[in-house]
């Protein structure tokens, strides 16, 4: 595979990985207020995307991939709400360990990286166009 095509594959893998990250952040935000259905059960646990680079033999480039999604081990938020069906004996309810502020920052960073990959893709495309203009 020639270099410009490898560059396109690398940018595409970056965009795919960042899009996966945005999806996970969206899942976290959507579940920020999730509670268990009954006492003693756990609410939604925040997901953390993990990226890894790998050498793709076909593309001849170091691509990036969303290897796995891990669960955030931090403690759940406790809310006092005795009327809730999942409230324990003291009237406390466990709420998902998601901080919307952190998620928004993560979303912004993923968006920025996605745009950088898109910019790289655009530059490579214009280089390929310059090569084709030699034929004119």
């Amino acid at each position: 595979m020639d270099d410009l095509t490898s560059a396109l594959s690398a940018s595409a893998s970056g965009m795919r990985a960042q899009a996966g990250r945005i999806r996970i952040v969206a899942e976290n935000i959507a579940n920020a207020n999730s509670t268990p259905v009954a006492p003693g059960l756990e609410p939604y646990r925040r997901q953390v995307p993990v990226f890894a680079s790998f050498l793709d033999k076909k593309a001849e480039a170091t691509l990036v991939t969303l290897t796995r999604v891990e669960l955030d081990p931090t403690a759940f938020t406790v809310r006092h709400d005795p009327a809730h069906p999942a409230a324990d004996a003291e009237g406390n309810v466990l709420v998902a360990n998601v901080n919307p502020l952190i998620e928004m920052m993560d979303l912004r960073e993923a968006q920025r990286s996605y745009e950088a990959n898109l910019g790289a893709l655009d530059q490579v495309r214009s280089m390929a166009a310059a090569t084709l203009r030699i034929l004119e």
Partner: protein
Amino acid sequence: MLIVARVPAAFNRAALNIRLTIRRDPAGQGIADLSMDLSKSSLLAGLSQRLQFLGARTSVIAQNIANSDTPDYVARDLAPSAFDARVGAALRVSDPRHLQANGAAGASVKTHLAPDGEASLSGNQVSIETQMMKLSETRMEYGLASSIYRKSVELMRLAVRGGR
């Protein structure tokens, strides 16, 4: 006199390999092959090598940008000197009918680590700003080299048409 102009179907990136072969067959004298290979012109060969280098560097930078959030990834770069070694590694040919390969095919390029400033908490050492700057620099140089290439081919065409 038989004049055959052929353009190989394999268009290897910028290496526009136009070959003009003139065959003469005066009775019983055999075929004399006078060929002109544009890729042997030092200007065009140099430019196509430059385009190949810039293409390879673009690929390295695109990989850095793609890995800008990968833990423990350190930015890489490509030096022109490392690329010369790759272009020099061509297949050895002892007969004109052998396969011609200009080293670029299949050979790997030796990149070097070029961390951008401080590392983040995850150990990643890529700065998107620096990489974007390098990318636009490479893109401009690529545009320059390909324009010069195009102009030289145009000049040659002008000469072939006799100034018309």
